């Protein structure tokens, strides 16, 4: 069982999209995948085939003390999805209290799940800082930080560092993925080069492009790899999946010659 937490200090940078697609790509390749939505937005389902946000999810069940995984469903690709479900603010408060009382709660619940040995569990977290995001970081084997290519991302260095320190994953499986990248825009290009200088080799070589194909796929409740396999975003997400699987997919990009001054 491998737990991967997708976290971000920024809102709207694409965690849910990332989780949905990584789960989908894995399931298409025959891996057992479970996508757990820890984010109260309750939108993971519509990435993975549901026409409307899920009407039942784990949050309400866990708040009342029942077995949390009763609200899961499988989609046609073979991804097992555990949506958050509609939740009132009181439910959220109860969950936070639960986590404050039992910091290991999420870890225990995940271990109690009846999933195959080689299952990959993807955790879609709320914007950090948040107790659920903290809990996810603590029980994750690999951490993927998702940031958009903008000045906001460049200003979040401290927050990301705090996140990575809070996580229990080894440093070589902590990566930062840049999303919503449009190289036509000068601000994005500058932001990306700044992020590269800040994070060096921790930044994944695959940046997810801002692609209309992704939005269209969401509107059709599908994943872009199925709907438009030649889209650049599909290629980028595939690359991120490979990085996570620790399979070297492409030859490493040529490093600049020793001693050459960067432009």
């Amino acid at each position: 069982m491998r737990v991967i937490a997708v976290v971000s200090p920024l809102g709207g940078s694409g965690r849910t999209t990332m989780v949905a697609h990584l789960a989908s790509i894995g399931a298409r390749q025959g891996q057992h995948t479970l996508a757990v939505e820890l984010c109260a937005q309750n939108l993971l389902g519509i990435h993975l085939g549901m026409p409307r946000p899920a009407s039942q999810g784990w949050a309400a069940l866990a708040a009342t003390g029942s077995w949390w995984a009763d609200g899961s469903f499988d989609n046609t690709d073979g991804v097992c999805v555990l949506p958050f479900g509609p939740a009132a603010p009181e439910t959220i408060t109860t969950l936070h209290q639960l986590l404050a009382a039992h910091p290991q709660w999420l870890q225990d619940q995940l271990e109690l799940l009846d999933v195959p040995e080689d299952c990959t569990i993807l955790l879609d977290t709320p914007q950090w800082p948040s107790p659920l995001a903290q809990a996810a970081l603590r029980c994750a084997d690999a951490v993927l930080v998702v940031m958009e290519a903008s000045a906001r991302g460049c200003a979040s260095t401290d927050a990301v560092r705090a996140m990575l320190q809070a996580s229990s994953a080894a440093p070589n499986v902590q990566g930062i993925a840049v999303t919503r990248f449009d190289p036509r825009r000068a601000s994005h290009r500058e932001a990306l080069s700044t992020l590269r200088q800040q994070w060096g080799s921790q930044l994944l070589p695959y940046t997810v492009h801002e692609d209309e194909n992704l939005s269209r796929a969401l509107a059709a409740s599908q994943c872009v790899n199925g709907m438009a396999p030649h889209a650049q975003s599909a290629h980028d997400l595939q690359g991120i999946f490979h990085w996570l699987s620790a399979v070297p997919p492409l030859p490493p990009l040529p490093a600049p010659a020793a001693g050459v001054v960067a432009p």
Partner: protein
Amino acid sequence: MTDQAPSGTTTPTPATEQADALVPTRKALMWLGRQLEVGHEAPWWMWLWRCFVLPPSPQRALRPWLLRPVRGLWAGLGWAMRWLWRVLALALTLVFWPIRLFLRAMDRLATHVNVGKGMRLADQWLTPALEIPGLRWVILAVGAVTGLVVMTTPFNWFGQLLFMLLCWGQSLVLRRLPGRYPSLALAAISLLAMGRYAWWRLTSSIEFDSVIESFLGYGLLAAEAYTWLVVVLGFIQTAWPLHRSPAELQGAPASWPTVDVYIPTYNEPLSVVRTTVLASMALDWPKDKVKVFILDDGRREEFRAFAESMGVGYIVRPDNNHAKAGNLNHALGKTDGELVAIFDCDHIPTRSFLTTAVGWFQRDPKCAMLQTPHHFFSPDPFERNLGTFRRVPNEGALFYGLIQDGNDFWNATFFCGSCAVIRRGPLLEVGGIAVETVTEDAHTALKLHRRGYTTAYINETQAAGLATESLSAHVGQRIRWARGMAQIFRVDNPFLGKGLTLWQRICYANAMVHFFFGLPRLVFLTAPMAFLFFEWHIINAGAIMIALYVLPYILQSNIANAHVQGEHRHTFWAEVYETVLAWYVALPTTVALINPRLGKFNVTAKGGLVDEPYFDWVISRPYTVLVLLNFAAFGMGLLRLFFWNTEETATVLLNLLWTVYSILMLGAALGVASEARQVRRMHRVATQLPATLYQDDGTVLRALCLDFSMTGVGLQLPEGTPLAVGDKVQVGLWRNDTECTFPATVMLHRGQSATGFQFDPMTREQQIDLVQCTFARPDTWRQWNDSHDTDRPLHGLQEIAQLGVLGYRKFWTSLVESARSRWPLRKQRGQERLPA
């Protein structure tokens, strides 16, 4: 008036008999008259008029009707020829089948030879043996004596045949073995065979009966001696290609030398020079240590404005003395970098040019010059007009792939005018770039070598440019080189004067002597005519003996060449190149040898366009004359074979075979003169790069860049991409891990296959980015040679023969077309008059 018989009786009378006999002919005449629409009372000439000049209607024209059986005959002949060809091919296959088995057996034998073990054993035994003083010279002397003995022993025909088979078998095994020593051994065997041939030729075949035969005979012998000399010199020159690899740069970037980049230009258009300047600005080198200068001998305002907008230097001088050499020397006085990098205005360097080249200057303080290959990404006239681009290595591949590498071992690499780095100090010591000859580059390197400096060659393509655009430009460039080399030979002979080692002298001499191929090649193209036209015997030996001596020599040298040079030049192509240039090179070299001061420098035009296919009659005049002579000789040869010289069949056959070979080579030369159309002004480079396509609706597609140029790209897009011609898009290309986008318009969209895009106007930064993403990538030219076919000599010969036949066909159609345009057919003229 004859008596008419009473009606009812038809007893034939002599008169009516005559009349009856006339009836069929009259009937025929009447039928003919109806066909030709000639009336009864028409005058006699009307018949002829209708027959030959103005037929009654197109369907009734007499000439095509007469020609119909001829056409049928022609078709029948073609059919017969095809069947004859098939039978011949079958017969040849059967004859060569045992030879093929023998070849395969030799190949299998080669797999059993363990070269590595052999080398180790040789090391074990020979190294201690060679320690004994003097033994080395003894072995060399013994080897030389043995070689001489082998070369000079006279054999009868059987002995020679056996010798030939032995050499051949050994070569077939050696050519499959890897390593340098088998190559040396192969070359040595071919030298032996050549030596035997030369000895026999000199001793047994020059006894002539008349003065004219002696004159021609000695002329042919001189031409052959020239080829022997070139082979020997070439053997030494390419014995041990050095394969030098780039040296790592030492020290911190702050300690690296400063470099001035010179881009001399005269009358080339700005569009050609722009890319070079942009790529030079993108060179990987500390920005404060590299300066780019445009040296404009044309003193043009748009260049000055361009240099100012780009922030590069711009140097002009008040005159144009000594052309490019003077231009460079003037700039030397105005700049102060420790190293000088020189690029022709259309040679685009990759980013890694300086980081590859400068390392050796740091490592070797005496290194004065480092040369990299001249690579062309557009086809030269041979490749374009014969259709061999990227399949057959081009003419320069042998020089830059093998010869300069061989020169490097003997420290004899010479400067080639571009894509090189020179150290300022030594260059100023020899007085700058040489101005005494038109090949100023080689002469400068010679002067540097005389001073004791070293030069280096790195066989990695770090810059690429445009090849000559048309055959006439190509010939002009080669004439200049030939003239320059001959001038250097006279003015600064490498064998005389001090400062050079023996091996450097040999290498330089070979480079110069190579350009004297004009006269010998012309001699070879016309030699058989002496016998076929005039029955002069200029080789006094039986044809069988000639065959037995020449065949092993040709076979050996082809096997050795194919092994040593095969990946840089396919067998028999040297003949094509020399045939095309022979006539034009012969006169300038002879004149330059006699008086080096004559002759002017002519600039090679860059960036021209062949927009309509045409046949270059002017350039091909000498070939046409030679072709006609050879065909006439062939005809005479056939007559001699069947009628006149039936007792000398072997000699006639040999001469006929030689003539056929010359005809095929000349045909290929004619094929090169038929200029094919060039579609684009900016040549596209074929490649495989990842790319992205940004469309207006926000979708981003993954694509593959199949070719690029400064004005556009070709992308391979997924099936069903909705694109229409005229759509505005952005194309993304990668420079390392940075993606750069460029605005473009869809030009050509053909579904699945490559879609063509033309770039919209770009900013300065975008242009620099484009060059860095495409031309200046360090690995752009690395896989260029992967698409070359392997050298298969017989197959290559067949291909050249086919190109020869094709050349004749192109020549004939061009001839007919130009004749038609000058003398239009009568019908056309008649129709033209009708409306009036």
